[in-house]
């Protein structure tokens, strides 16, 4: 029950907050108020102009780089008919791709070896000029070569090391197997420990051959079964798991492996076993017959492992040096290469003649900035012929562009991240906002985090409103708080209702009559009186209260939305939409939902505790209104007539909304076709000169 209450409350709180949010969102998205640059939230797209740019060949690169920095132009493709790979600057794009590939390789290696040294200071390097591109290419080429060489050395060394380690494991683990085999074959006791060596093995070797090796643990079961099947049970396999973590030299992952010894008789079986070992990618190692040889070999292997380890750590040190130099700059390099690539991509969109002609959209208010960028670009390239920027008249549909700032950004890309309770949410959002700088610099975070982070201001607001509504409903973590002292007092009840203190102690529940127990002149100052939390009918009281509030807020918000559409219609001077959509919508909404809101307010004002017994249920009232029934108690005089009129009006609105507009459009279409049909026949085709 408790849980249910909490959920309900949360829903209500969130519901209310959500209404505020939608209120804002709508206004940021599809509304039709005149553009106001000083307003924090813009209500419609910026006005866009179609511009045409004539750039000198020498200056084009620098100019476009500058345009990229201001980010205000959307370039259009003027070479739609030309294949991607047949465009003029595709070779440069390819060179950038190649550079990116090398950088990705370096980054991957750095990520593997020294992830902590990859730094991202949020730097934004200037677009490099084409001449700088050669230097970058050379630099990356060298880096790539060095790194690849170091890597291949390291790989070979680690592979050697791995093999030696495996061999060592074999020599150690097989000790036990051979000993067991000897005992099984030669049950006679062998005397002292030192004497227990060669004779047993010698007795075994002419009869039994064996193969030792290492196989990955997961393939072992299938390997064993295959051996058994292929050799018809004539081989004997012993295995032991290697506990040491072995690192695969290529992938760098830790792999679990097993040591195995296979005993068999005869050459035919040997070839068969060998082939199966190969098939299962088991590595086979030679293992000497006698124990002393194995011991010597193990000692030798151990020294070799140590040697290799020394060389390996030197190689790794070398590799780390190369990488740490690169890691510091890698983000900047990526940014540079991507900028170059972006410039060439834009150049590929341009029409290349004597001058380079580009077309695109830019916000009309920012054309000055575009001019400034063009001037900077021209200066940077050292030519003196300025770029020409024309604004074109066009009937094309402009792209939608909203200026956003940190605050409105989240509404633009709204995310509905509902979770937690107000305060937690608020603090969490506050923490994100306060650490904004740091988080902004951190690239490549997880998608979930970015979603939440992107919505930090929304979450902050949600938190704030939740706290506010929490106060109104006197509800913190679904417990109420008695700060100011309840305005309900039992003392009056004693005098007026013939109850004594004794009655209160003996009866489990008692109904308080607000007429006597409530002190009307000093209501609880903020929100709901905490005494409600003790009451049995708390939920039904709160629900009705919250529901009414939600209805009023919701209807107000819907109405607001409808009026925003009016602004949009009048912006486009769309009379038919106003007449056939907006007006009936408003009438429909007011006559049903608006009327409900009016009734809520009337009920709040008109009924107090003394007459609460005759207060009508609004829900039933509304249903009765549609069913054309009479109400047992009227809310006000003449209610029946008012409701019937409203109902008729609302019903009339439905065909008005749905039919009028399509009919008008059809009529217009017919008329225009008629006119065009006549004109085609009657107007003579003008002669060309």
């Amino acid at each position: 029950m408790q849980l249910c209450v909490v959920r309900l409350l949360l829903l209500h709180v969130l519901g209310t907050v959500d209404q505020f949010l939608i209120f804002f969102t709508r206004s940021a998205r599809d509304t039709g108020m005149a553009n106001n640059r000083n307003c924090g939230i813009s209500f419609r797209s910026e006005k866009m102009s179609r511009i045409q740019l004539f750039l000198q060949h020498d200056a084009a690169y620098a100019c476009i780089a500058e345009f990229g920095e201001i980010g205000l132009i959307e370039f259009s493709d003027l070479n739609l008919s030309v294949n991607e790979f047949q465009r003029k600057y595709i070779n440069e794009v390819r060179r950038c791709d190649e550079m990116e590939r090398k950088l990705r390789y370096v980054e991957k290696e750095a990520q593997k070896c020294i992830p902590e040294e990859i730094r991202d200071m949020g730097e934004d390097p200037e677009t490099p000029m084409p001449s700088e591109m050669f230097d970058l290419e050379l630099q990356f080429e060298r880096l790539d070569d060095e790194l690849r060489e170091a890597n291949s050395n390291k790989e070979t060394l680690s592979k050697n090391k791995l093999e030696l380690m495996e061999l060592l494991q074999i020599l150690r683990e097989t000790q036990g197997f051979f000993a067991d085999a000897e005992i099984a074959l030669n049950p006679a006791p062998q005397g002292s420990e030192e004497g227990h060596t060669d004779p047993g093995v010698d007795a075994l070797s002419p009869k039994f051959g064996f193969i030792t090796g290492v196989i990955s643990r997961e393939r072992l079961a299938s390997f064993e079964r295959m051996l058994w099947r292929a050799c018809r049970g004539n081989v004997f396999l012993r295995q032991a798991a290697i506990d040491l973590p072995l690192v695969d030299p290529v992938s760098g992952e830790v792999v679990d492996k097993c040591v195995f010894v296979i005993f068999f008789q005869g050459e035919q079986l040997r070839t068969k076993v060998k082939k199966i070992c190969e098939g299962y990618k088991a590595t086979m190692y030679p293992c000497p017959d006698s124990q002393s040889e194995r011991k010597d070999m193990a000692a030798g292997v151990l020294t070799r492992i140590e040697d290799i380890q020394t060389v390996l750590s030197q190689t790794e040190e070398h590799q780390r040096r190369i990488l740490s130099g690169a890691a510091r700059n890698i983000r900047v390099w990526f940014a540079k290469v991507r900028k170059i690539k972006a410039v060439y991509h834009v150049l590929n969109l341009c029409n290349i003649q004597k001058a380079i002609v580009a077309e695109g959209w830019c916000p009309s208010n920012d054309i000055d900035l575009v001019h400034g960028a063009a001037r900077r670009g021209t200066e940077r390239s050292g030519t003196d012929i300025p770029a020409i920027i024309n604004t074109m008249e066009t009937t094309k549909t402009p792209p939608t562009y909203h200026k956003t700032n940190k605050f409105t950004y989240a509404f633009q890309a709204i995310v509905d991240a509902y979770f937690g309770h107000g305060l937690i949410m608020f603090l969490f959002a506050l923490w994100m906002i306060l650490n904004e700088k740091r988080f902004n610099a951190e690239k490549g975070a997880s998608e979930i985090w970015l979603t939440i982070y992107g919505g930090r201001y929304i979450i902050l607001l949600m938190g704030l409103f939740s706290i506010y509504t929490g106060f109104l409903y006197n509800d913190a973590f679904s417990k109420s708080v008695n700060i100011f002292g309840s305005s309900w007092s039992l003392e009056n009840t004693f005098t007026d209702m013939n109850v004594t203190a004794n009655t209160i102690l003996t009866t489990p529940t008692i109904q308080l009559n607000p007429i006597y127990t409530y002190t009307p002149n000093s209501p609880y100052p903020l929100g709901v009186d905490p005494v409600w939390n003790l009451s049995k009918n708390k939920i039904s009281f709160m629900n009705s209260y919250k529901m009414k509030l939600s209805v009023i807020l919701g209807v107000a918000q819907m109405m607001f939305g409808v009026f925003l559409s009016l602004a949009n219609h009048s912006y486009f001077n769309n009379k038919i939409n106003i007449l056939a959509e907006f007006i009936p919508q408003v009438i429909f909404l007011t006559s049903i939902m608006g009327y409900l809101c009016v009734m809520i307010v009337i009920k709040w004002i008109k009924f107090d505790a003394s007459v609460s017994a005759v207060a009508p249920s609004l829900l039933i009232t509304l249903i009765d209104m549609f069913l054309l029934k009479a109400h047992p108690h009227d809310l006000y005089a003449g209610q029946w007539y008012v409701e019937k009129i409203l109902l008729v009006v609302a019903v009339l609105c439905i065909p008005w909304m749905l039919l009028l507009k399509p009919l008008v459009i059809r009529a217009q279409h017919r008329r225009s076709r008629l006119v065009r049909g006549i004109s085609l026949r009657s107007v003579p085709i003008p002669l060309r000169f």
Partner: protein
Amino acid sequence: MGGGMSGPSFNIDNGYLEGLIRGFKNGILTRNDYLNLVQCETLEDLKVHLQSTDYGSFLANEPGPLSVSVIDDKLRNKLVLEFQHIRNQSVEPLSTFLDYITYSYMIDNIVLLITGTLHQRSISELAAKCHPLGIFEQMEAIGAVSTPAELYNTIIVDTPLAPFFLDCIFVQDLDEMNIEIIRNTLYKNYLEEFHNFCQQIGGITADVMCEILAFEADRRAIIITINSFGTELTKDDRSKLYPCCGKLHPEGLSALARSDDYDQVRAVADYYAEYKVLFEGAGNNPGDKTLEDKLFEHEVKLNVFSFLQQFHFGVFYSFIKLKEQEIRNIIWISECVAQRHRTKIDNYIPIF
């Protein structure tokens, strides 16, 4: 199961995957893409164009210069990734259905390995050439066997192909002729089993898949017959290799079993409207399409049709087959580009 598989109840288990596969299908190259691809001068151009399609940056991490085999590998890897993603998400009976798709690749891999070892190639070299969808654990131990019986007892018995192999166990030794017999027997049994399975699933899946598999069966029967002319294969042995789940079964197959040359095969096909057209359109003169291409075209058509219906498994099969065809197309074009031999570059089979 038939009734319950349709509509919303299909979506409970498979709706997401069907959506996914239809999404993948939308990434299949169109006629326009091919028109652009054949204009490429170098493989680098090809890469640039493929980057603008659903393949995206699948070649971005390959150091130049590109080779056709690298492109082939990467194309195949992408398909395998998509398939495996879907296989991992699927539940019965779709998972078994998807497994059936992989069996054909397993058969190809086994045959490839046996033929390779027969020619003294090393197993690791051969394993690299195997199709990744048909890889199974025991596969590479194939070098240790020398007779079909051994092959069955050590390797195939642990794989899902075991029931398909039972007919081959009596084949004497592994020479080239017998390998072909094994391949075709495996395939025959596989197709019939798959056909059977689809019929058990019932509903639209059965409608769509049986149509496609019937064509596959008939195609194999026709190709086997044509390829057997001039070899030692007896008519009796040949007729044992025909899959019996196609439209040619039974009259067409017995007529095929009796035929001695191409014209007789053609005469058999004349009795079947859809195959008659294929033979009529095919020819060996320059500019003509070969019968094989015609058959591929028909297969593509059937697979494209399977996307016209909803709530069935056929789309999964068709997607894989269409993607295979697309890979063949891209590789064909890349080979032509790489070898600067452009006269036949248009011999690809467009899908949409």
